[in-house]
């Protein structure tokens, strides 16, 4: 069976005022159905840009210059912009590092969930709102009604991230890309969010592409790991194999950092 997502030779350049920076320099990557894959690497190694390139929501100076992104066999890079609307959120959904800044500060949580539901599922407002509240309950938010009517600044980081997950899952994506979703949270909340994600994955069924620089998380949740360094995938394999026998020095650095944290 072909993988859900297959990335081949992806290259992304940043066209800055007076120079060009090669942010992603030929990345190959696969995600199978219902699998959890970790994309690891230091900040600035091109992890985020790679994942944003999958649905072409890159910042303005970035250009995809080469490669293929095959989603269920279809090349995303060849699709016209309008065709991508149904894929973004509908097939590939994202959650990001800092929910507080990735949520729109002037719209309620409810509105931000509902607009996606209405847009993708063509539901009426009332139905969409009911579904939105249900989604919030699904991510274990006790006071779903209050959160629904709240603005992001009124909620804690963990609560925002839960709501964000609800929003991302609103349209039943096949692939959830989680870009360091727990980095801005404290450790206990981090554990809760990770637990929630794995549970939802079991229950709802989606593939998870998890970006992190923290291999402790990788070990806990993933079957396979890709390690990125300076725009390239320098190592990949089964999680256990990589921990047992890291080949690239950057992987060893990340593992060393993991052991250090373990000791603390």
């Amino acid at each position: 069976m072909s993988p859900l997502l297959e990335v081949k030779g992806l290259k992304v350049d940043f066209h800055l005022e007076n120079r060009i920076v090669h942010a992603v320099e030929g990345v190959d990557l696969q995600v199978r159905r219902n699998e959890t894959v970790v994309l690891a690497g230091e900040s600035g190694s091109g992890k985020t840009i790679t994942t944003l390139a999958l649905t072409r929501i890159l910042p303005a100076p970035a250009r995809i210059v080469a490669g293929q992104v095959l989603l269920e066999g279809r090349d995303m890079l060849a699709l016209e912009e309008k065709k991508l609307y149904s894929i973004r959120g509908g097939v590939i959904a994202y959650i990001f590092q800092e929910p507080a800044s990735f949520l729109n500060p002037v719209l309620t949580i409810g509105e931000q969930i509902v607009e996606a539901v209405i847009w993708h599922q063509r539901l009426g407002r009332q139905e969409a709102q009911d579904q939105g509240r249900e989604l919030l309950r699904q991510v274990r938010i006790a006071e779903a009604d209050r959160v629904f009517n709240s603005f992001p600044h009124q909620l804690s980081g963990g609560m925002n991230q839960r709501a964000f997950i609800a929003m991302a899952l609103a349209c039943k994506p096949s692939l959830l890309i989680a870009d360091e979703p727990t980095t801005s949270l404290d450790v206990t909340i981090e554990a809760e969010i990770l637990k929630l994600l794995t549970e939802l994955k079991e229950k709802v069924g989606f593939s998870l592409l998890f970006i992190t620089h923290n291999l402790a998380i990788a070990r806990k949740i993933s079957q396979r790991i890709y390690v990125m360094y300076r725009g390239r995938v320098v190592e990949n394999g089964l999680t256990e194999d990589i921990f047992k026998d890291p080949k690239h020095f950057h992987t060893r650095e990340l593992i060393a950092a993991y052991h250090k944290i373990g000791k603390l």
Partner: protein
Amino acid sequence: MLNYIIKRFLGMIPVLFGVSIVSFAVISLAPGRFSSLDQAMNPKVSAQYQMRLNRAFNLDKPVHVRYFLWLKDLARLDLGRSFVDNRPVAAKILERVPVTVGINALSLLVVFLVAIPVGIRAATKEGGAFDTATAVFSFVMLSVPAFWLALLLMQLFCIHLGWLPISGLHSLDFDYFPPVRRFLDVAWHLILPVFVSSVAGLAVISRYMRSSILEALQQPYIYTALAKGLPQRTVLYKHALRNALLPIVTLAGLSIPGLLGGSVIFESIFALPGLGQLFFQAVMARDIPLIMAEVVLGALLTVAGNLIADISYACVDPRIRYK
């Protein structure tokens, strides 16, 4: 929210107190060693003038007593009588308010109605022909003396082409017009003044709107909106625009001092009977009570503008509204 408003109101008190002291101080430069020019030219007029000053400002009393007496009158809205025609200053000012407020409100309306769409378009087509053209226009309009622009447009539209009236608020036979024609007549007279007084605002606010949109479009939540699959249009008009408009809301309040200052120039050029023209006449005639009243009024309006700016910002930004 209510707390916020109350706090802002209380915060105004020391400011208003300061404003009254500065206003008083400015005018107190005058009495006593006043107007050497007049005195030299016409000792009799000047002696009369001096007597009036003495009476109006209790010049025989020490400064701080004078200040408090003035403040007491001010609090009772007793602004004294004009030196020129002996009418109460308050009445003279009040009859002038509608013209100035009306024209400035109109030009603010024009500014926002035009500048916001222009700014949005310039931002979405960043670097394009429209963006460049509006950038050049703004740069030039910020450098052009408004009174000169008024003179040029008068020369073109009123004299060469004869399309617009050269001055005043309405035609001579205005009183005989039916209501609809009266309205049209006033509108016709206001085209040029409103346009000229909007120009600077247009230049500033369209650019401000542009950079505000561009900044909003770089915010993280825009990626979220895109990642949800929302179409460009929704991302721009719902997610970016709502955030970009927040700071714009305050600009209306903050542009009050500039508009008032401009009124002095436009109203004298176009012979419009507003506060600016009154102030100009007062300055020419050295009508001190009127000048003081206008300075205080100008400051009050500015303070009120700041307050409106803050409160309206608080109203539109949920981060302040729900705190």
